[in-house]
């Protein structure tokens, strides 16, 4: 049995407290009125970055054309535009702490979901190598419940207009004649409306958590069983879950991520998001395994198990790149305005995080993990794992931020604090769950093969 060391527990609480303080700071310092925004923009101007350049880039609310064509001499129009611009920036800055919280919450929840998908695949494949790691995976997936509940609350708050993360929720977007009327969103409103959207979210979250609960229960029951009936049950529900998962995962990625840019769509977006959090989940499994091993637990996990996890980290990183590039290249090549604006905002205003994510998620793990021997050296895996996890956070940052905060983005206190808070919560929940059951399934039919797994 694993005991949660008090040191790690304290560490997780420190992270959570620092996180909450930072999140609170982010909300308190967000500007309240356009006057505040004017002062902020003035201050920025003095730093050398004229906001006239910034004013051209507000694709998020679809008003960019009005800003780019200021009619000289028309003072009234110019001042109206200026007020509109200030209001727009105000919304972006008010979104900033919310978006920071949303990205971090989503990312950690998806790590648990990625680990859950990996675990289900192991069950369905009847893999012989991995049963010694099942309890580690179950520990990580324990975060799914708190993580998804917090996410659901955030989604609910968005729907109740506490923030403007989802522009398609604005009042009057679907009303012809209203000043917020948007023809494209109105056309999608049969699918993209708050009630249907939140019901879908509830069903998805309930389904995933139900599988996680039943699978864990059967796995524990199998320990004391006299036959393999619980194992077979797990096989069946895992197969059913994977079907449910791949459909809901796709829809989830449109609902919670792609819909922040409601005019834009990409048909491989679901796969792209999946690859991103799948590799993060596998990396989390690898890191927790290495941590437990360094503390003297998991005696039956040998270098071949570690090697296999590293191979998955390497392989899925390349898979992510394949999808990243496929999505980019087709849109870049066809150059259709309503599609290419997605990458134009990212390359112009998010240049460093956009290309930085490719370096962190592809170039670095590719070069480091391609060597066979490196795949089993702890410090190299941990280093690659940290870069991969940070890189995929940046990837999700790139998916959410351009549409919600636009060129007002910055990785500052609200963003870092949100990550710290959810990281602390993640550590606390995961390692607390690991103490609840023996770290090795006792009567899994493949446990002997797994113990002697040798590559």
């Amino acid at each position: 049995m694993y005991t949660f060391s008090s040191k790690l527990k304290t560490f997780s609480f420190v992270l959570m407290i620092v996180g909450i303080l930072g999140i609170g700071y982010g909300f308190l310092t967000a500007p309240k009125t356009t006057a505040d925004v004017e002062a902020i923009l003035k201050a920025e101007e003095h730093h050398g970055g004229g906001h006239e350049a910034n004013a051209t880039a507000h694709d998020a609310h679809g008003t960019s054309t009005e800003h780019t064509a200021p009619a000289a001499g028309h003072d009234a129009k110019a001042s109206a535009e200026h007020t509109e611009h200030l209001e727009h920036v105000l919304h972006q800055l008010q979104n900033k702490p919310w978006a920071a919280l949303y990205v971090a919450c989503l990312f950690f929840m998806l790590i648990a979901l990625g680990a859950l998908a990996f675990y289900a695949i192991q069950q369905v494949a009847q893999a012989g190598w991995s049963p010694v790691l099942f309890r580690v995976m179950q520990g990580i997936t324990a975060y799914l419940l708190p993580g998804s509940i917090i996410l659901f609350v955030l989604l609910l708050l968005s729907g109740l207009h506490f923030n403007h993360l989802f522009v398609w929720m604005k009042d009057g977007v679907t009303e012809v004649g209203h000043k917020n009327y948007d023809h494209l969103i109105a056309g999608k409103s049969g699918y993209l409306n708050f009630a249907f959207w939140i019901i879908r979210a509830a069903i998805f979250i309930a389904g995933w958590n139900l599988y996680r609960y039943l699978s864990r229960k059967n796995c524990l029951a199998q320990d004391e069983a006299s036959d393999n009936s619980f194992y077979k049950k797990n096989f069946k529900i895992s197969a059913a879950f994977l079907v449910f998962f791949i459909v809901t995962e796709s829809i989830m990625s449109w609902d919670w991520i792609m819909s922040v840019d409601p005019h834009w769509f990409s048909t491989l977006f679901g796969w792209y998001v999946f690859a991103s959090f799948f590799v993060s989940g596998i990396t989390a499994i690898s890191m927790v395994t290495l941590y437990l091993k360094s503390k003297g637990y998991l005696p039956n996990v040998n270098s071949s198990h570690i090697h296999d996890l590293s191979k998955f980290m390497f392989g899925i990183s390349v898979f992510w790149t394949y999808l990243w590039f496929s999505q980019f290249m087709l849109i870049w090549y066809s150059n259709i305005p309503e599609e290419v604006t997605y990458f134009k905002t990212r390359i112009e205003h998010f240049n460093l995080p956009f290309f930085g994510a490719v370096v962190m998620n592809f170039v670095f793990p590719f070069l480091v993990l391609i060597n066979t021997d490196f795949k089993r050296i702890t410090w190299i895996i941990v280093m690659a794992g940290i870069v991969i996890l940070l890189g995929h956070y940046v990837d999700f940052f790139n998916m959410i931020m351009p549409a919600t905060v636009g060129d007002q983005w910055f990785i500052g206190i609200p963003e870092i604090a949100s990550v710290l808070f959810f990281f602390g919560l993640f550590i606390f929940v995961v390692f607390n769950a690991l103490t609840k059951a023996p770290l090795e399934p006792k009567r899994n039919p493949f446990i002997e093969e797994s113990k002697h797994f040798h590559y």
Partner: protein
Amino acid sequence: MSSNKVIHAIYNDDDVLMDAVHKTRAAHHHIEEVFTPFPVHGLDKAMGIAPTRLAICAFIYGCIGLTVATTMMNYIMIQDWPQDIGGKPSFAYYQNMPAFVPVMFEMTVFFAAHLMVITFYMRSRLWPFKQAENPDVRTTDDHFLMEVAVHDNEAELVKFFQETGAVEVKVIDKH
């Protein structure tokens, strides 16, 4: 007396074979070669064969493929006959790089895969119309054969291999 005498110990199970290989190595007899109908996991390590360097070759071949693709696309699309495809005139290679990535990727894989297979065949001394080297046709079906050099210890070796679970032990004069 001559050193070109060898023992052929034949097994009908890969686990027994692996066990015998471990015992033979422990007894310091020199294993010349093992013939198996299918790849046996861990046999190379058990026999003490040095790790393969094929992966290094693959990396080099991949780099060659990438270079060939880049040079080729640069000549065709930029220098020799620049075209304006979809409003993207080919002024410089790096500007239209995303369009060339699939070709660069495919050529890397193509070169690495084909040259690696050819290298593997050459290294294994396999080429068209080559006479098979395996000494017993049953090694292509369901038997495993271990070939061990004899150094004036024929009787001792025969006895040793019979105890390792061999279904047949033969002394062969190799020419």
